[in-house]
């Protein structure tokens, strides 16, 4: 048995012993997901136990180094662990922007103290993070941001406003882009971390067309941020942000594959068999969907071996999000009048319609499709012009 197969057997055994039965069923909705943090209320003892056990084993962030709260697994081992979790139907013990976004950035740009402190908190589910990038009036144009941190010797005093801060009303800390030099557009922004309970921080949820409010407006009024809470160099926050956006794009581009390679058409056979033109749309969509999955697979293989163009994730983000929007248009068409229902139990609280509306943001958040096409055209295709 290879080392990897030994690991697989061990992981399997550990999961079977430690993952509570309740945690082997799919989460019923967002409220059923463990996000951790100071204010998180566990939905069940099983949810709490599952988190604690994973934290102890380093399995909330299996591929992070042990020193920072992980299990120090190799990429192959991490993949095997996920496969085994999927086979048993184990839920993710902890969802977190800290894991997906801040952690990788800290690993690359943070000091050793920052890694131990912040990544440890993330790994243990103690602190829930949010991201402060966009500002009103600077959607795709991030470098035009106005939020300003005035240098006061050992700290900055931050004033300004962010928008599209995911779950800012539920987060404990924020990683935030703040202008620290007004004279340099690109190299005048710093990447700061601070507590959302710092005096002067307020949040206001934004109601979306889906009826949900996953985002906030966030206001900073003379917020004091100690100097050691910077990640990376002063005025080079853009480097950190770009690195992190790349991660976000990969994450979002994965969305095209919500339904994986399994066609949604089969389940809809009864409707499609009487709707020849709609069936044709579905057929052409399935061709695109199979294509995107293969494309994603190829991209990941090239990315891992360093063969992918550094801007290629922008292409995947574009293709994946446009595909996901198309998928949801088809889900609505096939769902017909029942998919129009917004509140009824029959429609699971309007889940199809709300998901459909939610996907319209895919091609806006994390870089619009237009910006992605600009980047592909200029950086990969090397088209001329500014």
């Amino acid at each position, binding site marked *: 048995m290879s080392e990897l197969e030994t690991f697989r057997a061990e992981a399997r055994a550990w999961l079977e012993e430690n993952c509570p039965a309740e945690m082997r069923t799919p989460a019923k909705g967002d409220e059923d997901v463990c996000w951790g943090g100071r204010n998180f209320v566990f939905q069940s003892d099983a949810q709490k136990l599952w988190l604690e056990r994973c934290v102890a084993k380093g399995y909330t962030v299996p591929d992070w180094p042990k020193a920072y709260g992980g299990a120090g697994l190799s990429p192959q081992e991490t993949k095997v662990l996920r496969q085994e979790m999927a086979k048993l139907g184990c839920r993710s013990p902890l969802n977190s922007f800290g894991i997906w976004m801040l952690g990788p950035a800290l690993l690359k740009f943070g000091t050793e103290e920052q890694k131990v402190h912040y990544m440890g908190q993330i790994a243990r589910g103690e602190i829930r993070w949010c991201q402060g990038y*966009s500002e009103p*009036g*600077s*959607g*795709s*144009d991030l470098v*035009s941001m106005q939020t300003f941190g005035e240098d006061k010797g050992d700290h900055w005093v931050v004033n300004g406003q962010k*928008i*599209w801060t995911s779950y800012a009303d539920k987060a404990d800390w924020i990683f935030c882009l703040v202008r620290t030099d007004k004279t340099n557009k690109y190299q005048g922004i710093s990447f700061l971390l601070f507590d959302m309970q710092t005096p002067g921080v307020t949040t206001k949820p*934004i*109601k*979306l*067309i889906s*009826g949900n409010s996953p985002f906030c407006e966030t206001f900073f009024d003379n917020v004091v941020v100690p100097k050691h809470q910077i990640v990376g160099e002063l005025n080079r926050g853009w480097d950190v942000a770009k690195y992190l956006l790349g991660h976000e794009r990969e994450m979002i581009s994965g969305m095209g594959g919500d339904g994986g390679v399994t066609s949604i058409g089969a389940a809809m056979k009864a*409707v499609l068999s*009487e*709707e*020849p*033109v*709609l069936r044709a*749309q579905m057929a052409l969509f399935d061709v695109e969907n199979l294509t995107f999955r293969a494309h994603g697979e190829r991209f990941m293989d090239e990315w891992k071996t360093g063969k992918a163009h550094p801007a290629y994730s922008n292409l995947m983000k574009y293709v994946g999000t446009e595909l996901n*929007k198309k998928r949801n*248009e088809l889900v*609505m*068409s096939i*769902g*017909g*009048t*029942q*998919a*129009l*229902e*917004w*509140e*009824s139990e*029959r*429609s699971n609280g*309007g889940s199809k*319609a709300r998901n*459909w*509306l939610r996907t*319209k*943001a895919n*091609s*806006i*958040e994390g870089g*619009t*499709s*237009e910006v992605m*096409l600009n980047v592909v055209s200029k950086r990969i295709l090397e088209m001329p012009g500014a």
Partner: protein
Amino acid sequence: MAMTLNDDQNMLRESARDFMASEAPVTHFRKFRDMGCKDGFSHGLWKQFAEMGFTGILIPEAEGGMGMGQIEAGIVLEEIGRNLSPSPFLTTSVAAVEALKLADKAMRDRWFPGILAGETVIGIAIEEGVKHRPEKIACVAERSGNGFKLTGHKQFVVQGTSSDMLIVAARTAGAVGETDGLTLFAVDKDAAGLSMEAARLVDSAMAAHVKLEGVQVNADAVIGDVDGGWAVLSKMLDAGRVGAAAEMVGVGTGAMDMTFDYLKTRKQFDRVIGEFQALQHRAAHLYGEMEGARSIVLKAQSLMDEGHAKAELYVAAAKAKAGLACNLAVREGVQMHGGIGMTDEYDIGLYMKRDRGLNEFFGDAYYHADRVATMNGY
């Protein structure tokens, strides 16, 4: 007929435009939505529609209406669409009236006055599955006493629970899938055995699931001929379809105009985004699509008004094209608005929701494209 509006039609447009913009703009819709209104529309506004003469726009002059045609109804519907004005106009004053015009005098005398007065609302109870499939009606009407006993279920009955009467299509003969053997009935909302459950839709309209459990109706409840309901149904559906198409021209144009205004003011990268050529080309393409939709809808309306043999083909094409173009308009609208387009605070998302409802109403673009193919002989 020339494919331009005449002076009377232009005047009607002006007055409908002014009326909707002042009495039923998007803020009106928001108000009723946010109060969780059980009807999904304002009875007060419906009375105002009557005062304007809109409710009887298709009712013959001899019976107190304006005696106009689909073009005129469409003029009103376009303004309704542009302002997202919630009302029973499309179901009651367009679809139901077209059916009732084929009913006998007693039935017309019973319902037209209330419609003219803006007091009556009529629900269209056709759909039985999640997709439009009128020829597959399975709801049964058995001979019983002096009339019929109706058993079955209906869904997507827009404003059903606010309706005074439902037009129910049921099978008096023939097998599911046949167009012969259908009969249309006017069923009173209080009829014993009739029950409804309202569901709010994505665009905040209300639609009912209807159960018919041995609902007894008299013979005089029949609209048109027994077993010959397909003729009435087709007329009613085509009026509803071309009306929904006209409303979508309004929804799409409203979304498009709002978006073009935004392109001219929003700045990114130190430029007004309307300067970006990629957006300009998409805007011009969208404009062409909406203009095409406007044209085919006008063509379909005028052929219906002429009673032309090709009207059915053009109505199908119009419903399909208006659906495709309006859908493009709202998708481009949200995308070009960017983040704020996703917020409930901005109106563009409301247009996206309304488009979805109208696209499904009486058959979506794919359904009607398929009919175009069939009517074109392949």
